[in-house]
């Protein structure tokens, strides 16, 4: 008899680990810390970085990120359940490989490539270097071939980035659609909405024409790309006005304020969507939600620490504060 996999053990373990997540009060406390060093000390006191916590922020955050994925590997050995959350790293690595090989960039590989994707970075690099793209998943291989061709023909790194970013979002949306749990679909859609709006505004600011902007964007349920492009060609407020007519109207006020407020609102919307997973006990949703919550937490801590390091005023940093999952 084939029994459907339940996630009772995994979810119960996650329930305990959720108690260790940073709360809004922790974020406030971090914000109130007088210096970068004291903020770092606050995190290590909370158990961040483990017993031999690294003394610098980047290493500390990397250790926390790795710990999250090590835990998922332990809970779901060999599973592709959370691949949706790892896809962006694959495309980031593909972008790095294409640029490193075809523009002769001398940047340190360790800084360019990110661990934690579904394909080892070395494998992606080798496939690009040996032009053996068939080793990559079909959608990725197609995007890589197109990006390499455009880069060779035009030498325009931005164009190459656009092709790979769009392919990454399309792959993310497809993975979300195919995912076992609706949390992952929500993650994919909100990520794509946020990316589309940011790309459209960035491209409009750098003087791209409507057709180019429209071509950079990926189809997302509830967003009309022509209307978004038209609004982006005007200004940010027009995009916010357009957002008010879509299912993502809750993001509009933040977009009216600033881009960083908008990014923050996107993360908050994601947290709001995943919050019901705190009460699930048999489905994979709490696992996906935990990883998303950890990523959100790490993003927030990264912004706060870098702000502290650069001596940014508290009210500027406060704008970056995300809502906590717990």
């Amino acid at each position, binding site marked *: 008899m084939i029994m459907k996999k*339940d996630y*009772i*053990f*995994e*979810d*119960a*373990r*996650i*329930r*305990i*680990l*959720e*108690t260790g997540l940073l709360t809004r009060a922790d974020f406030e406390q971090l914000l109130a810390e007088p210096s970068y060093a004291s903020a770092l000390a606050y995190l290590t006191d909370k158990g961040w970085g483990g017993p031999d916590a690294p003394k610098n922020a980047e290493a500390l955050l990397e250790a926390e990120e790795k710990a999250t994925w090590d835990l998922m590997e332990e809970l779901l050995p060999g599973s592709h359940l959370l691949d949706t959350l790892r896809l962006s790293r694959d495309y980031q690595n593909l972008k790095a490989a294409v640029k490193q090989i075809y523009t002769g960039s001398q940047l340190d590989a360790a800084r360019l490539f990110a661990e934690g994707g579904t394909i080892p970075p070395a494998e992606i690099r080798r496939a690009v270097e040996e032009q053996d793209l068939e080793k990559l998943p079909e959608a990725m291989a197609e995007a890589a071939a197109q990006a390499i061709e455009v880069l060779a023909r035009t030498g325009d790194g931005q164009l190459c980035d656009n092709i790979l970013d769009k392919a990454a979002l399309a792959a993310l949306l497809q993975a979300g659609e195919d995912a076992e749990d609706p949390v992952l679909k929500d993650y994919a859609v909100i990520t794509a909405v946020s990316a589309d709006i940011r790309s459209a505004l960035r491209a409009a600011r750098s003087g791209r024409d409507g057709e180019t902007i429209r071509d950079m964007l990926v189809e997302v349920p509830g967003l009309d790309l022509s209307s978004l492009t038209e609004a982006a060609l005007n200004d940010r407020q027009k995009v916010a006005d357009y957002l008010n007519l879509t299912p993502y109207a809750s993001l509009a006020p933040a977009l009216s304020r600033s881009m960083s407020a908008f990014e923050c609102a996107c993360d908050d919307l994601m947290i709001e969507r995943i919050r019901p997973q705190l*009460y699930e*006990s*048999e489905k994979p949703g709490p696992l996906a939600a935990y990883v998303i919550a950890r990523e959100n937490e790490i993003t927030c801590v990264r912004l706060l620490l870098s702000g502290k390091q650069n001596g940014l005023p508290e009210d500027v940093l406060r704008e970056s504060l995300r809502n906590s999952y717990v």
Partner: protein
Amino acid sequence: MGEFLTTGAPEMMQNAGLMNDQLGIVYALLGVALATLLAGIGSAIGVGMGGRAAAGVLTEKPELFAKVLILQLLPGTQGIYGLLVAFVALGKIGVLGGEAPDAKTGLLYLAACLPIAFVGLMSAIHQGKTSVASIGLLAKNPKTFGKAMLLPAMVETYAILALLVSILTVSNL
């Protein structure tokens, strides 16, 4: 034909009577088997679910062992209720005592065992799910143990009602 009526009919009637007696114990044992099987299966599923949740919590907080063990074991009672009804029935149908019932009484034993069989099965599974949720609650806040235990215990009410009906009926047949 006439010969059959004079020689065959009494034999057939005798066989039918014998079958009637044997059918009685078959029906009664079917009831006993259902009470034990279904309530037992329900409890095994419920306790298994609770066990998986308990193991998840204990991986991170071994100090909660005693509390999660109680929550895990709550869905185990239905199996015991099924066994209790089965023992009482076995004591009356000629297996552990009493006399073998006729077909009609056997059917009554079968009917008497059904409440604990089916309610036992379903309530144990749902109690298991509630125990899992309560273990999650306990994981978040160990101080809520009393409340966490009360929630799955509520499901027990219906298993007890079914036990009462089954045991009273079996005892009075």
